[in-house]
């Protein structure tokens, strides 16, 4: 079943096209890596999918509905206030705000499951700011997972992670990807880290959408 479909998406500011007639579709369980140089529109494309930026033309369909389906998001900005007194549990549970109405209790079972999936249930009462970079990313991924178990949008999640944390984080993503569609913007062009089964290149000199093996073959040929 199609999980995300983008048809003829165009975004332009004045005369400048951020992207033009962009089309692709992802099936359930696909893992898309979006690559491209700085300023090629990777984060802007995510913002269009999230509904934060309105495209000039074209359509975005998520799941069976359009736009309103729940999305889990891991933002690029990791510049959190180091003195913020938030526990890991509080951070993760804030992902449930898109499904809990006022006066409704938090979905504790779902929050606990997300903590378990990301192997951080033992950290739930720890202060978020005291976690290592890798632990923080897993906590934020758990929050995204609480927000949606269908589609995860990750904006350069491996930034600022050391080699081993990055490896562990990617391993966790592969585990999650068995049931969830993932869209990840990455700067990491090391082919071993292009862990998705599909690639979208927004490089104007090397536009591409297809499977990862084909992309790697073409890059080598290029």
């Amino acid at each position, binding site marked *: 079943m199609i999980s995300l479909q983008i048809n003829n998406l165009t975004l332009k500011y004045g005369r400048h096209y951020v992207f033009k007639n962009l089309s692709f579709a992802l099936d359930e369980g696909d893992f898309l890596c979006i690559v491209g140089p700085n300023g090629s529109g990777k984060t802007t494309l995510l913002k269009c999918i999230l509904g934060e930026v309105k495209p000039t033309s074209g359509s975005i369909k998520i799941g069976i509905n359009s736009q309103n389906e729940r999305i889990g*998001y891991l*933002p690029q900005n990791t510049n959190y206030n180091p003195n913020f007194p938030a526990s890991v549990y509080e951070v993760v549970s804030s992902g449930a705000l898109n499904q809990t109405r006022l006066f409704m209790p*938090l979905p504790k079972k779902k929050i606990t499951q997300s903590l378990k999936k990301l192997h951080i249930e033992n950290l739930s009462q720890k202060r978020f700011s005291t976690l290592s970079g890798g632990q923080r990313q897993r906590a934020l991924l758990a929050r995204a997972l609480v927000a949606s178990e269908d589609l995860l949008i990750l904006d350069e999640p491996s930034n600022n992670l050391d080699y081993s944390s990055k490896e562990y984080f990617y391993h966790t993503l592969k585990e999650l990807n068995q049931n969830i569609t993932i869209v990840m913007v990455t700067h990491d062009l090391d082919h071993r880290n292009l862990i998705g089964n599909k690639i979208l290149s927004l490089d104007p000199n090397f536009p591409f959408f297809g499977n990862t093996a084909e992309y790697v073959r073409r890059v080598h040929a290029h």
Partner: protein
Amino acid sequence: MLTSLIEMLNYGFILRAFIAGIIITLCAALIGSSLVLRRQSMIGDGLSHVAFGSVAIATVLGFAPLEFSIPIVIIAAIIILNLSQNSKINGDAAIAVLSASALAIGTFLISINQGVNIDVNSYLFGSILAINEHDLILCLVLGIIIIFVFLIFRRQIFAITFDESFARAIGVKVDLYNAILAILCSLVVVIGMRMLGALLISSLIIFPCLSALYLSKNFRQNTIIATIISVFCFIVGLTFSYILNTPTGATIVIANLIALILCRIYHVIQK
């Protein structure tokens, strides 16, 4: 100290100030946790100057100062929010522009209308004698609204305080909750200005949260500890101002300052 506290509560005006003060300090600490953690501490300071300007206008025009100030300060809070989010002016510059302008307008109006200085001065520096029954009722009503609204939206307020971009992405109405927070802050400033004064009210928003930061592990704990510290410092400050015959607002702020230093020392020792 307890004897002095019981003794001073026999006076009607102190009893009114005591009840109003507990509500004001409780509300200020609730809102302060979010503002301080969003690095918007100075919004309270800016709004208190706006409140002073609007009190001056109300006094000159013969309106009830507090009621007149409420809509003015709320509008100012929303203008600060919009200026800092949608224009080239940074948040702190927007606050500086608005607060300096309001203070200048207030001072200008006072100087060209001789005879209103005394009452306006009590708004600038605060006065325990100034809380009449009408002020107390206004304080109770607004205080209950502030506490109720904060408790209803506490999860949303946490979400926009911790990570606004995530909250926006999952569909939380960030602009609405930012506006609610700004309005709550405006109401705290207006009800607190009578007792603490425009120049000191922002300290009640900032100090308790800073003290609580040294003692808390999570946001919920931080909010609860901040309110306890805030109310405790108010009672201690009020009592000492009665015993030492010192200005109430300044004594309460000094009590908060001592609490902040003690919390910092405790934090260093714990490390």
